[in-house]
């Protein structure tokens, strides 16, 4: 907080002074006649006329002198016109307007004016303006906060990410989360050390934000430093999110077979218990190296190690190990382990990849044949909606005659019918299936949807 609090007197003064070091616009300057006309139009009552003037400010009236003249007019305008001009000056990109804009961002004459000024600072400012924008983020109204966040993303110049990172410990947790996402949006690779530090902090929301940001920003070299987040004693959701972040970083390695290498390297420094726990992340990451480690665990005689291996394998990110799942459904002794493999098969079967619709459906069909409980059979029918093909309709439709899963089959049919691009070329097949839905389903929403699609009407999914 301390730096932020200093702003009004000292820092703003420095910011205003720095405005004079802006570059001179390169184009041939606008004629004085044009600048006079444009300035006059700023004062027009009609917003369309003002819009015409702002269009000139943005695109057609170059030159630093013109910028200074436009900016000097700011204080004389109505709030609406101020907002328009501030936005136009921001887009114009001539830093000669900084002085006037910074003043507006600091003085806060009215909400819309402050919002526009803060946004414009983002476009025209430099690293020293980061502190001002952070202050607006902490103290502003929601609209000003939103503008400050965007401003911090837009702010250009060497050292901006570090200037933002320096503020992390000076602001409350909620704002720290925002700043972390700003660094993420900026892909601020130089701030990985600070993000790693935040990922181990006390506040859960901050830790989670830091891991998400690291997912975007960190390189595979940072994986070992991210590993503690998946081993810590935290709840399942936080761990799963951390695993996904690590997965994202690992998958930045070009060769998929090497994706898990940073994790394997990290695991070598861990004790046996943590090494076992890290298998879950390896499963999520995928790749040949991970598979080898996980298979070693599955092959173990130790029951816990075996189970951890199976759980890790069930996290696999793609369909490349589908046959292994099928094998495990048949070979695992415990029903719970069989179910684990079957559910994983159902999850990966329809994933979109280079496989054809037929291949994806074939796996779902296989899963259906392996399912012994209605719960998994319904899951298969539910997942089938992800395969948008006529073949899926043909696969699902017969299950409308099976009372135990009919309702789910009806839902999948209308989900498929929802896609006009699939429905229209296969009208006859869909009409027949939708008639069956209307006759079978007990769900009034499903029946209504079926009727709508038959009549070529749309249905808006409730938010």
């Amino acid at each position, binding site marked *: 907080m301390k730096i932020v609090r200093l702003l009004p007197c000292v820092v703003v003064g420095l910011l205003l002074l720095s405005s004079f070091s802006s570059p001179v616009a390169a184009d041939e300057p606008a004629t004085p006649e044009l600048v006079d006309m444009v300035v006059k139009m700023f004062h027009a*009552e*009609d*917003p*369309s006329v*003002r*819009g*015409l003037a*702002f*269009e000139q400010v*943005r695109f057609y009236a170059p030159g630093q002198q013109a910028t200074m003249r436009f900016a000097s007019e700011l204080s004389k305008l109505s709030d609406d016109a101020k907002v*328009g001009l501030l*936005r136009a000056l921001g887009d114009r990109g001539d830093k000669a307007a900084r002085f006037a804009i910074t003043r507006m961002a600091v003085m806060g004459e009215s909400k819309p004016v402050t919002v526009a000024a803060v946004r414009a600072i*983002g476009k025209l400012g430099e690293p020293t303006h980061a502190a001002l924008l952070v202050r607006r983020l902490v103290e502003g109204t929601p609209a000003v906060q939103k503008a400050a966040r*965007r401003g911090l*993303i*837009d702010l*250009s110049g*060497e050292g*901006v990410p570090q200037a933002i990172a320096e503020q992390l410990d000076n602001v409350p947790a909620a704002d720290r989360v925002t700043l972390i996402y700003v660094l993420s*949006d*900026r*892909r*601020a*690779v130089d701030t990985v050390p600070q993000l790693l530090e935040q990922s181990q902090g006390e506040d859960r929301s901050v830790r989670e934000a830091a891991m998400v940001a690291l997912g*975007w920003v960190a390189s595979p070299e940072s994986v070992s430093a991210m590993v503690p987040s998946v081993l810590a004693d935290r709840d399942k959701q936080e761990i799963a999110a951390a695993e996904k972040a690590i997965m994202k970083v690992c998958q930045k390695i070009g060769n998929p077979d090497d994706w898990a290498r940073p994790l394997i390297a990290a695991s070598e420094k861990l004790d046996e218990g943590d090494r076992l726990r890290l298998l879950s992340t390896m499963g999520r990451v995928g790749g040949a190296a991970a598979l080898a480690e996980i298979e070693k665990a599955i092959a173990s005689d130790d029951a816990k190690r075996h189970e951890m291996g199976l759980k890790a394998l069930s996290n696999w990110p793609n369909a490349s190990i589908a046959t292994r799942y099928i094998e495990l459904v048949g070979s695992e002794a415990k029903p719970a382990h069989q179910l684990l493999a079957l559910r994983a098969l159902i999850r990966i079967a329809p994933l979109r990849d280079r496989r054809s619709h037929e291949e994806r459906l074939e796996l779902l069909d296989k899963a259906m044949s392996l399912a012994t409980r209605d719960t998994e059979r319904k899951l298969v029918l539910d997942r089938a909606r992800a395969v948008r093909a006529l073949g899926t309709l043909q696969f699902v439709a017969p299950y409308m005659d099976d009372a135990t899963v009919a309702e789910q089959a009806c839902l999948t049919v209308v989900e498929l019918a929802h896609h*006009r*691009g699939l429905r*229209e*070329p296969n009208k006859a097949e869909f009409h027949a299936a939708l008639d069956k839905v209307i006759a079978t389903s007990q769900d009034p929403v499903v029946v209504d949807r079926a009727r709508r699609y038959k009549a070529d009407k*749309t249905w*808006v999914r409730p938010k």
Partner: protein
Amino acid sequence: MARQSGSTRRDFIKSAGAATLAAPYVLTSNALGAGDIPPASDRIVVGGIGIGNMGQGDQVAFLRHPEVEYVAVCDVRTSVRNRSKRKVDAHNGNSDCQAYNDYREILERSDIDAVHVATPDHWHAIIVTDACRAGKDVYCQKPETLTLREGPMMIDAARRYARVVSGGSQRVLEDYRRIVDKCWGGQLGTIQEIAVTNLTQSKRCNLPAEPLDADIDWEMWLGPAPWAPYNAARCSGNYSTEGGSWRSYNDYSGGALTDWGAHHFGGALFAADVRELQPTEVIYGVGANGPHVTLRFSNGLLFHHNHPEMAHLQVKSDGNKKPAKAVPAYQGHGGIYGDFIECVKTRERPFRDIELAVNTMVVCHLSAAAYTLQRSLKWDEAAQEFPGDAEANRLLDRARREPWVL
């Protein structure tokens, strides 16, 4: 609510609102705003032109915006416009939505601020420019143009009348975000090459005559396109680009090369940050898998279509890391439609400003010209022609069927 001398419709309503203390009965509760409905001074009166498949989707998107007062629909298919009117009436809770066969009737209405256009592509340029001449802001579905010459004319009309004209590819910002983030994130350094694959050109339609469907005004559907006998597959609005739909035939569409090109090319050009540029040349080649083209930009970027060794949206870069750039965002709320609505209010240029949309279309059309002529071509952006290439310049535009004028 006609526009009054010296003010916009919205200003006029604001003035009228000030007088409501004296004469409250002049205004409806809707005009003043009730509940979630903004007052009329903040509302944008919208009409839809071409409300079949894509137009229907656009209409739904506009109806979701509380600022929009949707009052008119236009389509040359009776069933489509009647269905669309019913939908709008149901949404508005009245029966006031007017249905038109001829777009000019919508444009003549002085109470309408903006129109969305989703006709087949051969109508886009005429309707968009006419709409600008009538003082309307326009949201035009992609592909915005059918010929190279249409683009500058649409931009001129938009600028001449200070209209907000947005192109209609929502995917440019939304679907390619991952590749955009990757390229703008700076970690790849300068993008040197980017590739897009597998988009085919439209062909001439020579389908036989079928008995005319009474539901469609055939002459109006054809409009500026060469006369041809009615055939249901010729004018079907389904999304195929390989036959059986207007998207497949070159009198009405550029085929997948423009229909999907508007998205794919638009996304790739955005990712490579050349959306404000046009190429300087298109290089034609034939590889193991058939013809391919490479478009060269003045900043050195090479943009490939069907490159024999590069995958879809594959990028090559110099690897010299540089600072991330902030990715431009939509204004307002509600994606590309909200962006357009916000810009109608602020009079700023939308994310998919017509000029940027046209730049994407130029890449599509230049590729098509090279495939058609089976050779490489130079492009002069300033002159908007193929320099010193009389034959290629023949492809810049095509005469429109009388009485239609662009």
